[in-house]
C-alpha cells in the first residue's frame, strides 16, 4: 500500500482538506466576522475554483490529457467562476 500512497496526489488531497477547513472558518467559523462579506464571498469563490482546478488537473488527470479537453475544462472554470463573481458583485 505504501508505494500507492506515496504519490504527489496525497499532498494535493491534504491541501484540498486544508483549504476547505479554512473556507469554513472564513464563512462560518471564528474568522467569519474578521472580513467584510463583500470581500469574503469573492475570496471563498476563488478558493473554491482553485480547488476545482486541483481536482481537475491532478485527480481527473487533465494535466496530461489532450489539449482540447484540458482547455474545455479551463474554459469551464473561467466562465463558471467569472459568472458567479460578476452576478454576485453587481
Amino acid at each position, binding site marked *: 500500500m505504501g508505494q500507492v500512497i506515496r504519490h504527489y496526489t496525497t499532498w494535493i*488531497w491534504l491541501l*484540498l482538506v486544508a483549504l476547505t477547513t479554512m473556507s469554513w472558518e472564513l*464563512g462560518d467559523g471564528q474568522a467569519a466576522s474578521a472580513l467584510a462579506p463583500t470581500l469574503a464571498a469573492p475570496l*471563498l469563490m476563488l478558493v473554491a475554483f482553485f480547488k476545482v482546478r486541483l481536482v481537475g488537473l491532478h485527480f481527473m488527470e487533465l494535466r496530461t*490529457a489532450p489539449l482540447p479537453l484540458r482547455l474545455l475544462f479551463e474554459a*469551464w472554470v473561467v466562465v463558471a467562476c467569472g459568472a458567479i463573481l460578476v452576478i454576485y458583485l453587481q
Partner: protein
Amino acid sequence: MSGLELTADTPVAGRRAERHMPGEEGVWVFILGDMTVFALFFAVFAWYRGVDPALFTASQQTLNAGYGLFNTCLLLTSSWFVVLAMNAARRHLNNQAALLLVLAFLCGLGFSLVKFLEYGEKIAAGLVPTTNNFYMFYYILTGLHFVHVVIGMVVVLFMAHRARRGIRGGGDMSFLEGGASYWHMVDLLWIVLFPLIYLMK
C-alpha cells in the same frame, strides 16, 4: 502524439508528448455537459440571491455549515481513494485497488447518511422547497447533486469489481478511468456548491 499508445503500466506523470485521454470520449461529453448544466444553476442561484440578499442570508443562517464541511471532506477523501486505486490498478495491485474503491464507496455512503440527516432536520423544522426561493434552490441543487452521488456510488462498486478481476485490456483501464473521472466530477461540483450555498454571505 497519436502514435504513442499508453499501456496500464505507463506512469501518469507523463511527458507532454504522451498526452492521454482518461476514459472514453463519450464519458467526457457527458461530464462536460453535466458541468455546464450545473454552472447554469450556479449562475441562476447567484442571480436570485442578488434579487433578495437579505432573505438568502437569513435562510443560510438556518443551515448547518458543519454538515457541509464534513461532507466536502468525505468527498475529497473519496476522490483521493479513487486516485490511489487507479495507481494500484496500474501497478496490477488488484486487491488494493478494489479495497481502495470500496473505501471510496463507503465515503459516498457517509455523505448520503449526512445528507439524509440534514434533510430530515430541515423538514422537521418546516423548512421545505416551498418555504422560500433559497430553500427551493437548496433542495434542487443539493438534490440534483445527490442523484449524481448515488449514480457515482454504483459506478464505484462496478469499478471495484472490475479492478479486483484485474486489468486485462485497454477497455478495462478505460472503464476505470471514465468511472474515476465521473466520481471526481461529483466531488468537483460539491466543492463549488458548499461555499455557494452554505458560506457566501
